[in-house]
């Protein structure tokens, strides 16, 4: 398992990707097979930075879970917000009518199983991404 605390900024993505790389190295996993974990991590992290209601840094935890990698983001000082309740965008909508928002979560939900836990104003969002071969 590996844990880090990242600043609530988009430019912390580089550190997030470095953390994933360090986890893959520590677990002797092929870094080239980290694409989906990186994608899920970026989408969820940027969602928290842009739309999260908490304050302060964001905790990141990576661990093996079954045949997958569990990525958790921990946000303090926040009301409960379960991203699983966000409706999926209409895939048949013409491009002209599509908004950028919502696309990231739609991608995440196809790649990972999501869990959300909220306790004493701390929200923990966990995404379990199957290991790529």
């Amino acid at each position, binding site marked *: 398992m590996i844990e880090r605390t990242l600043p609530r900024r988009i430019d912390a993505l*580089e550190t997030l990707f470095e953390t994933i790389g360090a986890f893959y190295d520590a677990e002797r996993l092929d870094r080239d097979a980290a694409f989906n974990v990186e994608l899920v991590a970026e989408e969820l992290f940027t969602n928290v930075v842009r739309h999260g209601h908490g304050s302060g840094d964001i905790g990141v935890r990576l661990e093996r879970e079954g045949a997958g990698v569990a990525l958790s983001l921990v946000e303090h000082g926040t009301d409960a917000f379960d991203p699983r309740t966000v409706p999926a965008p209409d895939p048949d909508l013409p491009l002209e009518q599509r908004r950028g928002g919502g696309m990231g979560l739609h991608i995440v939900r196809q790649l990972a199983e999501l869990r959300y836990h909220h306790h004493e104003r701390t929200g923990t969002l966990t995404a379990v991404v199957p290991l790529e071969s």
Partner: protein
Amino acid sequence: MFEIAIDGNSRATLTGRLDASQADRAMESMSALTGDAVVDCAGLDYISSAGLGVIVETYKRLARAQGSLRLVRVTPRVRNVFALANLDRVLTIE
């Protein structure tokens, strides 16, 4: 690392990783594309929804001006991200 090069024939070449931290810069560079534009994605290793947003907004801008956008030499991994976002059916991806 992310690099974007635009040539005089309205062709953009993307290299590296187009994530949310690079999207604003990419959008600014892509604003130089006009008419029937081509985006070469052979060197694009990674794209997220923020990068897809840059492509979609550029596509819309060109379409409004009767132009077009074609993505060429897209790697399977990057193509899969377009598919996950249901964009592979509405964009021209080669």
